[in-house]
């Protein structure tokens, strides 16, 4: 079946490498990708210094500082999908604070006579000041992150821009600390090539580690689909907050690095031109990856340098071109437009450079993790609803619905389109608030739980219109779910392997979810949900769009999982053959209400159900044709 699935989808069969070595191969691939980023930065710095001497070294220092700053920026933007213009604020704070803590005391007394005593006279080394700078950056990130993490998309971007403008304004106003718009000078020029390169390499390692860590995965999952992340118990706000704090702390240190490179600066040094240049570098390279940030800086540095030569005027084919100022910014702007037009995901195409887990390089790695054994059987409990109601603009989508679905059994939920089935699932999983009624699972009040707390109560769901984390691989999708359920990494990996094997996704494990064929996407949603080891799963049209063979395959897999683990399934589908085969009881809804409930045969014979749902046409006759095999199926 594994080969069949791979061949039918046109994907190359990668089944050759055993599934059990996958976590090891993923780790090896992650390390290799970090090494590629480091090598890129190192090679560029070496080439500049060796080819262009002193001048090249200056460019290399600037490039390394930019690598540190853009990698820091990417740690937030890439993982959350929110473009931030606010990182200039962190850089400003880092540069001024580190400057104040390290400048010679005598110089400080003349330049800043009114400096508050707390900040005056420290005269620390750059290294001694760094922890204080990092701590200040973290504190500022935590204070501002509470507000920014609540927002998503364009409104979050605007908020970061607001933050930049506020901090810029405060820096202009706080004359006694910053000398206002006047140049702040006397900062030790400590950023030489060794320091800058060291910092750039360290930041790359930290950003790569964060991206592949538990919180990096959560942030990227919430970026790709917030509703699905919430259903797994991942709070998108918290992921944004964590990414903001990590990224803000890094950006503050990058600002100190920049300050010690310049030696003298003003608030304008950290305002829009700088921020724009760094955002442009990130987008040109590819926002979602660390290698994109590094590549973007490299390309932009070369471009800017070439243009800067031209900015002072030059002679082209005997024609004197006059000096044009601002050409570097224009060139960067054009580069963004060009790159977005030709490669919407940046030069690196939204992928970390370097070998993937399927690369031949890692084929020899021994199996590191064995798939986890099935979890203990779910305890006997029931999902129960009473008087559940919800209206939209006066239309009662769900009205006074009561039913019960136990663990250890499959309860079918059928009904005409628009009957309120999906709305009911949304009420039970807190995606919508109920107008009235109660819902409990095993004694816990579902309606009192926050949206991200339903998963912890043991209730998981799939989505009718497929909500996968498209930018994550198949393996990462399932791994994220297991991690979100609170499992330690090694255990989560073993669980992910188990679910991939159970749903025949092993050969597709390192393909991104967005590139999967339809049938595999449907299976992945169920595998992801099972990785949380829930006691009750709400399946919203799992077989929609599948042909009879695929539906039968899915039914067999669900039956096996259900029997093995004793979970409860609430199964919504329109394929009656499928629902009848699996369900021991069926609930029928129409126009927001439960109209029938009972054993499949009873429900099928109910005239109200036939009238509202099944009809007497062709579909009904086709469903009946299969009645004999289906009763056999039920007894097994």
């Amino acid at each position: 079946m594994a080969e069949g699935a791979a061949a039918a989808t046109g994907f190359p069969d990668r089944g050759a490498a055993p599934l059990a070595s996958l976590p090891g191969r993923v780790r090896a691939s992650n390390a290799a990708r970090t090494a590629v980023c480091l090598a890129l930065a190192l090679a560029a710095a070496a080439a500049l210094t060796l080819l262009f001497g002193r001048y090249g070294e200056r460019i290399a220092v600037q490039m390394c500082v930019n690598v540190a700053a853009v990698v820091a920026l990417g740690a937030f933007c890439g993982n959350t999908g929110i473009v931030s213009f606010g990182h200039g604020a962190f850089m400003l704070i880092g540069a001024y604070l580190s400057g104040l803590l390290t400048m010679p005391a005598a110089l400080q007394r003349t330049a800043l006579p009114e400096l508050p005593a707390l900040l005056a006279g420290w005269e620390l080394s750059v290294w001694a000041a760094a922890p204080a700078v990092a701590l200040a950056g973290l504190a500022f990130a935590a204070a501002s992150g509470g507000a920014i993490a609540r927002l998503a998309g364009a409104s979050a971007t605007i908020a970061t821009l607001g933050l930049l403008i506020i901090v810029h304004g405060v820096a202009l106003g706080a004359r006694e600390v910053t000398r206002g718009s006047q140049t702040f000078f006397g900062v030790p020029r400590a950023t030489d090539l060794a320091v800058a390169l060291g910092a750039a390499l360290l930041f790359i390692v930290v950003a790569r580690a964060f991206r592949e860590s538990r919180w990096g995965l959560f942030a990227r999952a919430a970026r790709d689909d917030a509703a699905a992340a919430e259903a797994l118990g991942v709070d998108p706000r918290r992921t944004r907050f964590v990414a903001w704090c990590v990224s803000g702390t890094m950006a503050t240190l990058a600002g100190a690095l920049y300050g010690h490179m310049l030696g003298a600066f003003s608030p304008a040094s950290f305002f829009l031109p700088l921020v724009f240049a760094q955002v442009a570098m990130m987008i040109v390279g590819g926002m979602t990856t660390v290698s994109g940030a590094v590549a973007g800086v490299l390309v932009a540095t070369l471009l800017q340098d070439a243009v800067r030569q031209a900015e002072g005027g030059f002679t082209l084919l005997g024609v004197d071109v006059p000096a044009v100022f601002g050409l570097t910014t224009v060139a960067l702007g054009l580069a963004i437009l060009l790159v977005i037009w030709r490669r919407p995901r940046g030069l690196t195409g939204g992928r970390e450079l370097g070998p993937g887990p399927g690369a031949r390089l890692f084929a020899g790695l021994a199996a590191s993790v064995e798939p986890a054994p099935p979890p203990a059987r779910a305890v006997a409990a029931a999902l129960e609803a009473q008087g559940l109601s919800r209206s939209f603009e006066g239309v009662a989508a769900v009205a006074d619905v009561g039913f019960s679905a136990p663990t250890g059994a499959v309860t079918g939920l059928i009904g005409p389109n628009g009957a309120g089935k999906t709305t009911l699932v949304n009420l039970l999983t807190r995606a919508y608030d109920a107008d009235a009624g109660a819902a409990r699972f095993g004694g816990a009040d579902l309606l009192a739980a926050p949206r991200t707390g339903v998963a912890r109560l043991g209730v998981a769901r799939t989505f009718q219109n497929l909500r996968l984390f498209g930018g994550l691989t198949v393996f990462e999708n399932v791994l994220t779910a297991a991690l979100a359920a609170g499992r330690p990494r090694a255990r989560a990996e073993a669980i992910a392997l188990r679910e991939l094997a159970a749903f025949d996704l092993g050969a597709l494990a390192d393909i991104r979810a967005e590139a999967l064929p339809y049938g595999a996407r449907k299976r992945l949603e169920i595998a992801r949900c099972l990785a949380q080891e829930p006691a009750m799963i709400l399946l919203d049209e799992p077989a929609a769009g599948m042909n009879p063979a695929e539906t039968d395959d899915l039914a067999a897999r669900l039956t096996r999982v259900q029997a093995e683990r004793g979970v409860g399934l609430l199964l919504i589908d329109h394929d009656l053959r499928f629902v009848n085969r699996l369900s021991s009881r069926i609930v029928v809804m129409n126009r927001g209400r439960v109209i029938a409930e009972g054993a499949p045969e009873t429900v099928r014979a109910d005239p109200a159900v036939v009238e509202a749902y099944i009809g007497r046409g062709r579909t009904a006759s086709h469903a009946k044709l299969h009645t004999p095999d289906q009763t056999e199926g039920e007894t097994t």
Partner: protein
Amino acid sequence: MSVAALEVRGLEVRYGPVRAVRGVDLDVAPGGVTALLGANGAGKTTTLMAAAGARRFAAGSVTIFGRDMTGADPEAVVRAGVAISPEGRRVFASLSVEENLTVAGAVVPDRALARGRRAEMMERFPILGERRRQLAGLLSGGEQQMLAVARALMSGPRLLLLDEPSLGLAPRMVDRIFEIVEALRAEGIAVLLVEQNAALALEVADRAVVLANGAVAAAGTPAEIADDALLRSAYLAA
């Protein structure tokens, strides 16, 4: 012998190195219904989107009502009298049901005719009439599916490309969709029908093409396809 509504010859589509569709030939007779069947990933949707001008192809030709439309853009294909109901309920979520239909009717030059068609759609799909003022994004999945089909019919097409119209629909509604396909045929509208539900598709079609791994595995009358036991078990599982 009148000219075919749709004639696809030697179609080849690639996704990077993967040849998703390999040398597919396909005909839809004027006023006929051709069913395009096969497993998920066999290349059905890719073939349909290539015929609609929405997907570039590496080789082959597409002729619509006798006009060579190879490499034409989707707008030109629509102007040639083709309507598409794409897979996956691509309705305009922030417009109401009625507005969705109005937008789709904007290609009809005669306003009164467009209004008439809109009323007709609400009659054909009563649930859309009931929910005419509701935002399409708030419809249930199956209702969105119906809206997508209704929207495709608004332009008064001569050839309709339907991608999985029964997806996510209740049995009664599936019947309704297939009745509509039959009614369209009676009105002389040609239909290319991509379906998972092979048994039903074969009942309404007068020609069927089965795809497997991007190539034509079989083509013929529904009776021929339905009687071929091997074909049924291998590709249709019907």
